[in-house]
């Protein structure tokens, strides 16, 4: 099974360890991973800010980059939602491009979704001694309907105790440019999220979108809270056979 990694701009620039973990876990379970070097960003910042002309060109670029891929896998529910739902929508008035966009949408998967639904992974072979809780990112849980996959994978990690996060359906306040444009509202939202995370007693917060984790993690650090943030892939890469 050949898998093209769509790293996402945030993981590429800020969190390369997430990408390395994705590669390690996919390879451990038998996938052959490639990384099309011409990939850029999914274009969501432009799309969500109203710059649809720009987002459309970015979408076409990405459609071309992954044209030859068998599967495309990404460690972000939000970026996958962009490719899966909004590329075909953005390109709907150009039938050839719309067709290509639908093709990409059909073969693109979020990381944990891919492990469970396509690779049928049953044993994760990972261990992490920690009290943790899981943040359901909005675009992944609502946009893609992926809720069980990451938590069922995490439930198999040896030594990992998962606590239920209260108000887990609520947004963390990231929202892309929302976090900077409406920073005071975003602050109130992330503070409530932090309060709920603390209430679980967890020392690790696990998520599937580095946007949310960068927001929550940045607020945890700013307010001096000793809680570590990790991507699901980083947890699954722990303790596996090298």
């Amino acid at each position, binding site marked *: 099974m050949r898998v093209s990694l769509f790293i996402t701009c945030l993981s590429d620039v800020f969190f390369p360890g997430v990408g390395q973990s994705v590669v390690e876990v996919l390879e451990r379970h038998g996938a052959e991973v*490639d990384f099309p070097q011409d990939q850029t960003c999914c274009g969501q910042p432009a799309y969500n800010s109203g710059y*649809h002309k720009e987002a459309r060109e970015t979408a076409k670029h990405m459609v071309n980059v992954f044209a030859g891929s068998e599967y495309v896998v990404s460690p972000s529910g939000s970026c996958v939602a962009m490719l899966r739902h909004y590329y075909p929508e953005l390109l709907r008035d150009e039938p050839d491009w719309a067709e290509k966009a639908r093709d990409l949408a059909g073969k693109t998967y979020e990381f944990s979704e891919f492990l469970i639904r396509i690779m049928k992974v049953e044993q994760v072979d990972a261990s992490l001694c920690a009290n943790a809780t899981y943040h359901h990112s909005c675009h992944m849980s609502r946009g893609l309907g992926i809720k069980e996959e990451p938590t069922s994978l995490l439930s198999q990690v040896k030594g990992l105790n998962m606590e239920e996060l209260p108000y887990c359906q609520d947004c963390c306040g990231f929202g892309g440019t929302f976090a900077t*444009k409406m920073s005071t509202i975003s*602050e109130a939202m992330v503070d409530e999220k932090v309060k709920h995370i603390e209430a679980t007693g967890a020392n690790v917060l696990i998520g599937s979108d580095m946007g949310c984790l960068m927001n929550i993690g940045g607020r945890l650090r700013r307010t001096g809270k000793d809680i570590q943030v990790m991507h699901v892939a980083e947890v699954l890469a722990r303790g596996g056979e090298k």
Partner: protein
Amino acid sequence: MSVQPLEFFGRVDKALIDEQLRKAVPFTQDRLRDGRFQAANELGNVEEWRNLAAQIRMHTIENLDSYLEQLTDNVVQNGGHVHFASTAEDAVAHVLRITKENNARSIIKSKSMVSEEIHLNKHLESEGLRVIESDLGEYIIQLAGETPSHLIAPAIHKTRAQVAELFSDVAGRPLSDETTELCQFAREELRREFLEADIGISGCNFAVAESGSVVLISNEGNARLTTTLPKVHIAIMGMERLVPTWEELDIVVSMLTRSATGQKISVYMTAMSGPRRPQDIDGPEEFHLIVLDNGRSDILGTAYQEVLKCIRCGACLNVCPVYRHIGGHAYGGVYSGPIGAVLTPLLEGYEEWKELPFASSLCGACTEVCPVKIPLHDLLIEHRKDEVERGHASWQEKLAFKGFGYLTTHSSLYDKAVRAGHMATGWLATDDVIEKGPGPLAGWTSVRDLPRPAKQSFREWWKKEKEGGTHGN
């Protein structure tokens, strides 16, 4: 109100430091949202219900002209009068004319968001008329001199203690903050007003085209008193608030009450088909239906058309994390929350309301619960697109996204930019963390730390560790 003393960010700041609001809004929001959640679970097949309700609403919107005509014919046949109002001013003029024709001096109202939309009370009072709101929440905010901050719970931002204070002023004696005592007081005050009112004004949850009926949903019984005791009843409806037949009414009312409060059905559901008939023991002698357009027909046929499906249940407010922290007044318009952020700029333009479509993290909680499946967060994105295309964005932002567009379509340049990230941010970072960023980063770092771009980006790692190996492409 449309004229706000503060601009958007000022209103937001005011809300965020309002400790009472920050306690009261999440408290009631939780109760309403849990109620809806349980009601949806009890239904079991809530998605089928949503699909059905959405189809009914869409069908009605797409055939609005013929259903409005049928409604009008039936209201007239029942002995009522129908007045079309293209604008808020027209609607106010109709009401004022009816009050003059009846020599009315005092008016009792049941809760109506459309009457808020046309700022009816202000106009009536300036004509010297006495206007009393009879819905408990509306009565509270009328005493406070405020506007509703929620579609169905207008005083959601007030704590019980604040209500006790307002009521004590009216009573001229201290009242406790016990709910029973406060309700009893309001009941006594309002009963007198009901008996003295010359005209009752209500909104209209739904009009039924096939019978010319106006249906009101309430929990306090005040709507029934408003529409039966005074000699004249005026109902004001948004032109899209109708259903073809009683069969469709059953579905949309079921969705309205479940989505709003989690109730299978409200305590009262009142249907009125015209004025009192000779054999009736009560009811108004005159019935007027004012049908308000006020920008709605301009939305028909546009990308925003689905917003007209709205049945004003408030479910989107009850799950919105932004509304949760800033409440309704910060939005500034009559309609708040996600639906207000979509609707207000449509009714009143971007000039005054350009921030509203951005007052959302696009989490999609609103879209998920909407009983008539309005794609609320996608319509907010549509607004953002229209704002950019109509030149409401700053030149700095336009330039930045032009740059973004160029960079993300030119791989080698993008590659260089990613590789340069770490070096370029050396001057900003301490221990690989940026605590105070310049320009557009300032909004981020005012609240949270930003990691410095990694020393070795993923693509560099890949090139070094994997390229040329068995997995290269």
